[in-house]
């Protein structure tokens, strides 16, 4: 365990990415993630890396695509409206089966929205990242330590499965500081990038990185193969955290900053004699369906806490097959649910299920 230091979430992501071997960052300023770019601009030149400020989010994600196609670990970072601009590139990355890391430090929307924390890009991240059938691997940290740990994991899983990973944070996590340790990431046994464009060296046939298949039977085959890979990821890589869950009558489902606030409310509910617990998805795609199905066997009700009008709640309902009531506790537009509001939702769920 290395010494703990205090870091902002945004800076922790950047430092973790560098430690994970990323030397190519393509960025564009947008609040509340700009510290990622600023940190990269400061640090990359000192480690023989590249910080390149693109002319747009669109250019940045396509630069990531080029660097990834050339076989290096590459990333970009943005916030909600900027991620929307990256949709095109995210779809091409998926169609080309390219690994990359994309960070979304969410802010309120729609439109230009606001700059305060939000979780209203859950659908965008898990369902609508771009056109066509594909998934991003979506990781949702809820502490600065997880900003680091999940950045390491994101690069590893992206390379292992040739998928683009998204770190889905929010303005609170991006801006807050807490102690964090930055051990070097564990060495992983990853497949060689023999598909990369590096120049043939006169030793092999030319490599083509491409998402165009004009024959529908060919395009269908690539989609089917990709979804076989996704099935493997769903089996192996779903992650969650359980907090006071074993005897919980009321299961609070929340990710990211909302899950931190929910913990306060859960402790307060326990103090009132309500057996509440937290089931926190760490991966949003793949969603930890099995953990929810298991919890539904003993829980009386679920409460999802989101800084959105109710997006993750759909995955919770699907996972518990509507066997138990699921209610929503939310604030939006950059407002953050208070522990008292969550506690009230827990009380209602407990009373309503009696």
């Amino acid at each position, binding site marked *: 365990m290395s010494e703990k230091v205090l870091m902002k979430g945004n800076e922790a992501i950047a430092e973790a990415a560098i430690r994970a071997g990323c030397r*190519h960052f393509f960025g564009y300023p947008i609040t509340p993630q700009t510290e990622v770019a600023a940190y990269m601009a400061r640090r990359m030149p000192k480690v023989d890396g590249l910080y390149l400020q693109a002319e747009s989010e669109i250019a940045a994600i396509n630069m990531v695509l080029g660097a990834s196609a050339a076989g290096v670990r590459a990333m970009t970072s943005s916030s909600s409206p900027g991620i929307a601009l990256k949709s095109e590139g995210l779809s091409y990355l998926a169609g080309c089966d390219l690994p990359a890391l994309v960070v979304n430090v969410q802010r309120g929307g729609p439109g230009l929205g606001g700059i305060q924390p939000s979780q209203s890009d859950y659908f965008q991240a898990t369902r609508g990242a771009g056109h066509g059938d594909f998934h991003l691997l979506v990781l949702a940290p809820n502490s600065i330590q997880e900003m680091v740990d999940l950045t390491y994991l994101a690069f590893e899983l992206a390379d292992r499965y040739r998928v683009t990973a998204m770190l889905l944070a929010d303005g609170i996590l991006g801006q807050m500081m807490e102690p964090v340790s930055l051990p070097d990431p564990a060495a992983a046994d990853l497949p060689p990038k023999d598909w990369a464009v590096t120049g043939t060296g006169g030793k092999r046939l030319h490599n083509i990185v491409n998402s165009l298949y004009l024959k529908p039977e060919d395009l269908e085959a690539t989609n089917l193969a990709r979804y076989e890979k996704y099935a493997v990821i769903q089996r192996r890589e779903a992650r969650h955290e359980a907090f006071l869950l074993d005897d919980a009558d009321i299961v609070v489902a929340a990710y990211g900053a909302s899950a931190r606030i929910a913990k306060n409310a859960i402790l307060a509910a326990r103090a009132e004699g309500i057996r509440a617990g937290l089931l926190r998805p760490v991966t949003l795609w793949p969603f930890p369906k099995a953990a929810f199905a298991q919890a539904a066997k003993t829980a009386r009700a679920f409460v999802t806490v989101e800084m959105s009008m109710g997006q993750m709640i759909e995955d919770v309902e699907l996972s518990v097959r509507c066997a138990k009531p699921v209610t929503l506790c939310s604030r939006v537009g950059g407002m953050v649910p208070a522990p008292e509001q969550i506690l009230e939702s827990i009380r209602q769920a407990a009373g309503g299920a009696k």
Partner: protein
Amino acid sequence: MQTVFEKTPGLTDAVLHYCPGCTHGIIHRLVAEVYTELGVSDRTIGVAPVGCAVMAYDYFNCDVVQAAHGRAPAVATGIKRARPDTVVFTYQGDGDLAAIGTAETIHAAARGENITVIFVNNAIYGMTGGQMAPTTMPGQITQTSPYGRDPAVAGYPLRMCELLATVDGAAYLERVSADSVKNIRAAKQAIRRAFECQLAGRGFALVEVLSTCPTNWGLEPVKALDWLRENMIPYYPLGVYKDSARDGKEAAQ
């Protein structure tokens, strides 16, 4: 028996899909001959566009990435920055480079990205069946300018070499034409200089090749060549618009 002409090994054996009389095939050959003759084909990486040349990845016998519409210079930037020892070129049409990808083009030039851009200007969107392009001539009839391009409504064509000549990061800019043997020979020399510019590390190089689209222009191939000479060359004059090597020498004198 004496061999007087051979297909360059810089191209694969795949059969080109281009229409009869289209000049893409010639331009492909020139690019492939140049990186082969320069001895760099084993470290060359191409970036294919969206448009008629979208399947260029099947034809260029080097590593190729296929890019989203207009984004080839951004993709090329990522490749070149990740692998500075490679030779990176994009091959783009007028819609790709001068409409949807204008920002990527200008900013790759502004950064002085050490890449080579082959810009095929045939004044029309070919792949989608002949719509107005940013380089469509005033008065030119296309599917989306059925009464002829009216500048009062649709604006004026963009002259990309002239525009990019104002950008400090651009090192080599030349406009050539694929309409005649003489001009094709000159085009190959220009493409060679644009690759040499990259090999010398001088920065962004672009060669604009005026070319024909007999199918969508509705002209027989030979008449299409005449149309190019009579209409395009006067509007898009041939020549070197910037050469940092030459300009540097002149400045030093």
